[in-house]
């Protein structure tokens, strides 16, 4: 019986199917037309549940809005065009250091043009970012950046940082090849060190301790302390961006010489002490 009720529809099935098929085809043609038009005029992809464009996906996964996602990260691996240059590279600070507790944009001026994004961590997913504060304005702090060019600075929101105080400063004196550890204004230790050779000099200026890491592929030192500055003559070195660092060396004959490719080679005792100095601490590299 049920079958019989369906059989008589046979004569009308064809035209109905045709009609329905035409509607289907028309609808799909509309979709294709709209999508093509949208793509051609360069508008954002529509928000359909099947997902957006590959760019939409990338931005969505980045965890920031499209304008922010387009900004480069400020790390030792990158160069930030237009970053303000440190105007007082010979001045010490009061020891204020800040750590962004969320990724935050770096601006040219307080509330001004965004230049970069500052990540919470500096060495991949580990090693908290700590930067020295060189100037303050209401709701903003002016910090030294770890990226190229040397002496790069930028402004970040005070609301996005934790802050602390370091009592230390590290002085690197190139002429005398000495490193001094200064605590609360008093020199506590002095070591004779090796510095960059003339073809790859250790850069002069105000920089900071960027991190502390071990690397099985760089066994000349049990711990390496990268700084927020780079070789002025080597764009890359060993596959890295030419980051200058403080580390020890397997032989003692390098101390008191211009023998490195820009890094500061220190005795083991110095490395041990410097490894306990907070990140963000100023490192003042001077010609004397």
């Amino acid at each position, binding site marked *: 019986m049920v079958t019989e009720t369906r059989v008589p529809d046979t004569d009308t099935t064809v035209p109905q199917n045709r009609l329905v098929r035409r509607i289907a085809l028309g609808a799909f043609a509309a979709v294709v037309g709209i999508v093509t038009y949208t793509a051609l005029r360069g508008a954002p992809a529509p928000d*359909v549940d099947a997902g957006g464009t590959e760019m939409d996906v990338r931005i969505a996964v980045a965890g920031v809005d499209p304008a922010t996602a387009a900004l480069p990260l400020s790390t030792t691996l990158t160069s930030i065009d237009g970053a303000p240059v440190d105007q007082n590279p010979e001045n010490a600070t009061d020891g204020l250091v800040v750590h962004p507790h969320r990724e935050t944009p770096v601006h040219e001026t307080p509330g001004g043009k965004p230049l970069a994004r500052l990540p919470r961590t500096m060495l991949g997913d580990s090693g908290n970012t700590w930067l020295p504060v060189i100037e303050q304005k209401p709701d903003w702090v002016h910090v030294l950046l770890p990226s190229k060019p040397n002496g790069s600075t930028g402004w970040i929101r005070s609301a996005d940082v934790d802050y602390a105080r370091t009592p230390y400063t590290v002085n690197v004196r190139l002429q005398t090849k000495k490193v001094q550890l200064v605590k609360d204004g008093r020199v506590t230790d002095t070591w004779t060190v090796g510095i960059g050779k003339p073809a790859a000099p250790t850069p002069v200026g105000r920089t900071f301790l960027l991190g502390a890491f071990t690397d099985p592929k760089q066994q000349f030192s049990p711990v390496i302390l990268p700084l927020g500055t780079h070789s002025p003559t080597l764009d890359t070195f060993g596959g890295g961006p030419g980051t200058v660092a403080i580390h020890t060396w397997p032989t003692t004959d390098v101390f008191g010489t211009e023998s490195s490719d820009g890094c500061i080679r220190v005795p083991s005792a110095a490395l041990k002490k410097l490894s306990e100095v907070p990140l963000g601490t100023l490192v003042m590299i001077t010609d004397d």
Partner: protein
Amino acid sequence: MGEGSAVRSRRSVRSVAAIGVAIAVAVLVGSTSATADAGDRPETAFAMAGQGLLNFGPLTRAAAPDGTPAHTEVVGLATVAGLAQAGITGGLLTSDAHIGYSATTVADLKVATLLSADVVKTTCENGHGKVEIGNGALLDTALPQFPVRGQTLDLALAKATFGEEKRNADGTITVTGIKVSVLPTGVLPTGGGLPAITNIAYVTAEEPDEGSDDSGDSEDSTEEDTAAPKPRTATAPPSAPAAPKSAPADPGPLVAPNPSDVRALPGLPNLPLPKLIPGQPAQTITIGSATCGTVDQKPLGRPAGTQQGSAEDQGEPSVDDADDAPAPEVVEADLPVTS
């Protein structure tokens, strides 16, 4: 049988027509929405997105550019290409946005054997982010219900970050509920810590060979020694890998597989292992993203009392009330320096 086929055919054509019309409407509505994004208010939210071997999303996006409350929802993920095949299913996905507020909820989430949760709710309200996870697990490891902002769980094969907040250039905040990276370093890890999770990660629970020595005493074994415990292969993932098998047979000791034996993504056994790029996760999946601004002019962000020395709690940063900075944590990194 022929009549049944005709009826199914008609229904099928009607269904196609209905889907076509629905998609056309959705596209038109979506276009309108995208255009309206140029409004003043930044509040948006979406439920899921993925990048890598499987690209999808952002799904169930809601935006309130003019401040008018917006709500989107979808039941299940069956219509999203590739997700069902990959073993990614969801119950109800909702997103909401209005002035100063956005939120998204994913219920009954299951990402193959990688991730599961009864509910993941991601909220951004007046510049504050919050994430709540109900009965969540990553590779069988329980997830925190109320994670601390940016808290991570690193299982080597997969890494999850919870409640990560990022400031946008316009001053708004985006909070991400859960971000999972599969093979986060772009390298197949080996060694300590892996055997405990390999059974649900990317290997098939093969029965030990007859007569094999499963005591774990394989010190004298060689690679050619067939008596040694065999790494379980990754070729044929079980359809319901995390569920206990009805057969009570002891699967034997878990051993880390040789990288050459791995053919599927950890936790996503229906997806083939792609060519890995060091430093780049093989797959990233975002569960919940909410962006909001503030409804007043105060730069809110960190909940009061969560940490000393925060400028949000105590005004401008100052050395006068600052704690001593911490000694550095020595981490492992790959950064060639000038030496």
